[in-house]
């Protein structure tokens, strides 16, 4: 087993220093499907090195927000500035090229492939051998395969999934599939990692493991993370700042403590009687 040095939560105060410039800013994003507005006028930013949580009740537009960030949906209004560049429409694979990684709410692994191949797929953008070299499996193609295999093995060690390396992922239990999916996203060495409910449907132990991996990825690789999560305990513990959405609008934005005390957020989660 790899030495998984989970940072004790007490050390988290020191992390504040790592948080730097604004990495991604969304300005006045509005996204509509036909007449239905999924997102209305949303603005917030994500800073270099932070863990940014997006929370909100079901149907608040959280997943749509991530889909807008990595180019799967194209908003009708608003701007997205990533690494200082304001972009027009962008295809998801271009977003990936610029360092935006992603996991999915409903696991989106390549079910016919093994764990190893799934994570190797995450290295696609870093491999440049030509087609013919791959046909003969010589020279650059072979060197690349071996070099990236080594990189992938480090991720496999990091996530402690050595034992399932050669198993087809379709048959793995849910918690492990989530972990493989995180591994695949990490293999792209993302600058910004978007996690869509990484802990949904997990038991306490699995959640603790997953938290540890997220924090480690954030600290060891310096990956900026934006995550959607329903478990408030997790959100409050691991995130630096939280943005709250409800019905496609932004309710609140700030540190976990600020958000927790915000009356609008309490209303949205607990309901309120307006009398």
């Amino acid at each position, binding site marked *: 087993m790899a030495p998984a040095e989970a940072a004790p939560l007490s050390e988290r105060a020191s992390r504040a220093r790592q948080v730097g410039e604004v990495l991604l800013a969304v300005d006045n994003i509005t996204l509509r499907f036909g007449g239905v507005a999924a997102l209305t006028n949303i603005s917030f930013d994500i800073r270099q090195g932070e863990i940014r949580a997006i929370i909100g009740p079901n149907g608040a537009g959280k997943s749509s927000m991530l889909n807008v960030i990595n180019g799967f949906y194209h908003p009708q209004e608003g701007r997205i500035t990533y690494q200082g560049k304001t972009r027009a429409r962008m*295809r*998801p694979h271009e977003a990936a090229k610029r360092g935006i*990684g992603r996991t999915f709410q409903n696991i989106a692994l*390549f079910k016919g492939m093994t764990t190893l191949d799934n994570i190797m*797929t995450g290295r696609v953008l870093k491999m440049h051998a030509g*087609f013919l070299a*791959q046909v003969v*499996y010589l020279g650059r*193609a072979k060197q690349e395969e071996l070099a990236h*295999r080594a990189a992938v093995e480090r991720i496999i060690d990091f996530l402690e999934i050595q034992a399932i390396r050669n198993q087809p992922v379709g048959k793995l239990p849910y918690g492990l599939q989530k972990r493989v999916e995180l591994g695949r996203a990490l293999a792209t060495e993302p600058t910004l990692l978007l996690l869509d409910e990484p802990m949904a449907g997990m038991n306490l132990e699995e959640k603790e493991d997953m938290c540890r991996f997220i924090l480690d990825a954030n600290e060891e690789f310096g990956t900026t993370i934006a995550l959607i999560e329903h478990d408030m305990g997790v959100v409050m513990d691991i995130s630096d700042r939280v943005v709250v959405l409800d019905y496609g609008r932004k309710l609140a934005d700030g540190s976990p403590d600020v958000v927790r005390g915000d009356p609008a957020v309490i209303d949205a989660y607990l309901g309120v009687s307006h009398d």
Partner: protein
Amino acid sequence: MLYRETGVFHSSYAADQAIFKLPQDRYAIAFWLVVAAVVLPLTVSNYVLTDLLTPFLIMAIAALGLNVLTGYCGQLSLGTGAFMALGGYMTYKLVTALPSASALIGSLTGVELALPDPVILGIRPFDLWFLAILIGAGLITAVVGLVFGLPSLKIKGLYLAVTTLAAQFFLVWLFIKVPWFTNYSPAGIAPAPPRTLLGLQVTGAASPPVNRYLFVLALTCLAALAVKNVTRCKVGRSWMAIRDMDIAAEMIGISPTRAKLSAFAFSSFLIGLAGALWAFVKINSVQTDAYGILVSFQVLFMVIIGGLGTVLGSFLGAAFVILTPILLNIGLTALNPGLQALGLPAFEVAMIKHIEFMIFGALIIFFLIVEPHGLARLWQIAKQKLRTWPFPY
């Protein structure tokens, strides 16, 4: 315990990523290669070489090609027959327009000059010209396949399958209607001209079955190796990622355009090669009858029965689809004397054909029910049994 990974330790990623990781596998493949290349040509009859083994190997290449597209990249195609036809006709055009390397240079420069025919290490490189022709025809097929693959960027699944039927019917119609493709031969049938390779005649009516067989065997092995290599590299993983979950694939940086089009091109290359071999090595002529929609289905069956997304499956599927009708034919014909003795009507040729259709249809359903992952999966299961034998738990 007869077949096991235990005790075989790989100390490098290179060893772990080898095609045949286990010594047993390496011995087995070496054994089969020797049998195929040496033992069989020396022992079996010309009938077996010409009517069983050669077609089996050619169709295995076609099955490998379709497996790249359908098995690995998940794009269903019913146009295989047409791309085989394209390979055949392009080879014919190239081989008649450019009978030799000097003819090519002559047509490019306008100067007819006799090239030297050097001998390097006992090989006359210019005697590999036919190989170059085949590759050229394959490349043309690849480009056309790529064009017909363009709709796959927007159209998915069964919708795409219907658009591939456009390729099937349109190309075959084109070859019938445009006499240029057969060099204006009156019956629309272009006879395959004799060609040599390394001094051995491999095409044309007079070429010996052994030459043809060995030629096809070599190409089949190369095709299988190429597919195996590609599918364990980046491109292959991109294909499989697109097949399994195209949206997720795109979000980790795989360009669906490149993945799908490369699959169409590579697949068409192999299918075109198979079509060329079918015309030049198997039936000695290029004609559209050999490339109808039925051929498209046959190759699809090979891939499904053999196993989608496996190299081994392409071979098992091709063997099954090519050999079953022949064995069925032999078996039913053998019953005839017995039937006549009993005063029953004998099986006629047409009836055997009908029964073949029925049995084929039934077998497809049977296989889909019993083992949807194909014959290759049965081999996996057998290996698993061998691992644990004699103690199943």
